[in-house]
């Protein structure tokens, strides 16, 4: 330790000896030779971001062209906003927007509050063994792939053989095929979302709950506050900032419905309720080969996404500054 300390002191000194402030400003090549090994390390990463992140952004200009693979991006003719105007004018646009927004709304209205409720219930749990066991169990689905979740759904709701098919149809006295009925597409998707994500979502709230000042509870108990009023007057206000920030962040990706989940549950019979921007881009672009049109749809979604994220960020900052923190 002593050795380390001396080196620490010496290290600071050597650095200022090696690089006097005047030399630091003396030209690009000096910088480069001093940092050459670090830049060398950066090269693979820079290539990655250039090729797989930025090249597609520039490639997205095919949304304004009539891209023909044979002619290449440069050789294809410009069409301006034609694909966008076509898209906005098509009945697809309203349907996709509707489906996407309904799913986003259900997410915010059902899955999100449920996460908070479960976190609160867990927080009220007195037996720490039960608490830990329940936490361990409800985090598991988060790590399963959407393919596994979709397969489980297919098995559980399978026509005539699925346990949930039997259970729900017996209770309701109906004969619903949950996997193909468009009216049941959203409930099934919500069920998946809740099953897979709710447990994991509680983590952030449990962390916020753990940092609530315990003395407040003692004071409240002395004042005669019951269990419910403690939750209502201490716990909830304490985690309100977290709730608001999480809510705002969620609003930032309203148009992100999750390609894999929706794609895996879409079939020819439920398309009218199932089609969202993400899957539409896939079916138009990859399956049908309308590269430019589908890129325009994707670009529209991405730009709305950026606006929402920056808007949400702005709101969040404003909210944080107005002083709940």
């Amino acid at each position: 330790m002593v050795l380390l300390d001396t080196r620490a002191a010496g290290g600071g000194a050597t650095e200022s000896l090696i690089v006097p402030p005047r030399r630091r400003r003396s030209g690009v090549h000096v910088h480069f030779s001093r940092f050459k090994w670090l830049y060398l390390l950066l090269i693979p990463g820079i290539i990655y971001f250039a090729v797989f992140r930025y090249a597609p952004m520039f490639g997205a200009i095919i949304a304004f062209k009539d891209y023909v693979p044979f002619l290449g991006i440069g050789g294809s003719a410009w069409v301006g906003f034609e694909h966008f105007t076509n898209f906005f004018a098509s009945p697809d646009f309203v349907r996709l927007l509707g489906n996407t927004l309904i799913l986003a709304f259900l997410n915010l209205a059902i899955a999100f509050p449920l996460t908070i409720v479960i976190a609160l219930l867990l927080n009220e749990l007195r037996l720490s063994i039960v608490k830990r066991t329940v936490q361990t169990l409800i985090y598991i689905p988060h790590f399963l792939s959407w393919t596994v979740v979709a397969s489980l759904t297919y098995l559980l709701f399978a026509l005539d053989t699925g346990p949930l098919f039997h259970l729900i149809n017996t209770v309701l006295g109906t004969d619903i095929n949950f996997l193909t009925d468009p009216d049941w597409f959203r409930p099934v998707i919500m069920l998946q979302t809740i099953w897979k994500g709710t447990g994991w979502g509680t983590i952030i709230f449990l962390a916020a709950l753990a940092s609530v000042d315990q003395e407040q509870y003692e004071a409240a108990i002395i004042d005669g506050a019951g269990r419910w009023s403690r939750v209502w007057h201490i716990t909830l206000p304490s985690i309100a900032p977290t709730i608001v920030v999480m809510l705002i962040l969620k609003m930032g990706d309203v148009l992100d419905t999750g390609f894999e989940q929706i794609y895996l549950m879409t079939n020819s019979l439920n398309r009218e309720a199932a089609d969202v921007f993400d899957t539409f881009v896939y079916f138009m672009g990859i399956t049908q080969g309308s590269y430019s049109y589908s890129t325009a749809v994707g670009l529209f979604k991405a730009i709305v996404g950026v606006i929402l994220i920056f808007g949400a960020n702005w709101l969040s900052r404003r909210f944080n500054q107005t002083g709940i923190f």
Partner: protein
Amino acid sequence: MAREKYRFNTPAGRVFDVFNVVILVVIGLIALVPFLYVLAGSFATEAEIATRPFFLWPETFSLKAYSTILTSDAFVRALVTTVLVTAVGTGIQLLLTASMAYPLSKANLPGGRVMLMLIVFTMVFSGGMIPTFLVVKELGLLDTYWALILPAAINPFSLIIIKNFFQQLPKELEESAMIDGANEVRTMWSVILPLSKPVLATFALFYAVGIWNDFMSPLLYLNDSSMWTLQMFLRQVTAATDLSMLQSDASEMPPAQGIKFAVIIVATLPILLFYPFLQKHFAKGMLLGSVKG
């Protein structure tokens, strides 16, 4: 840790406690039961799956489903492929991420801040599915396993967390290596990375789960069904038969129910085996990310 808030409890509070335990145990079971059902089903006979609507313990044990899939070329190929792609891919992705994170952790690196901003921008905006597909196609990566590894090689979020971790390592250790004449590449390799093993292990698991579970990349980039990964195979086995069942008379022979159960189990098993590590590290990683992000 004494939890003071629980020291006083009313009778109503005690009733609530009981209900609370019951509710949460039920919630915990809901997370587990679908999996137990599939596990039981994978060891049951075909007849039992067909006749009993729901069970968590098979009446007669059968290994038929497993012996069928493990002797199927397509399945074994998908399994081996997935294991290899996951192993190689995780190594490549982790190496690329760490070697980019290290230079960026140097506050005095000229251009570092701009680069970081450009990286953060990719978390907000992307060219989208089709332009990325076209890039992969132009590079000649379609129908190669590189397409499952390279397009997602560096996760910006992981990159930034690893960078932040490197930043808070004591500077003295690096400096002593530098004084001994090592350049930055060597310093990173022999000083920084060994010090960061727990963090790197966490993100290795992150990447591994990502590749193992990935369905979109093989769907987009692999046309050749002999190259399919486990997730693609699973999709084919469960969804395809279900759609043929929807047409009420399945003229072609659908894969037996038990096979679906068994494939789901195999696709999930590695995740469950790693779950204890996952849970420990991921929860921390997520909190770290949400604080710093």
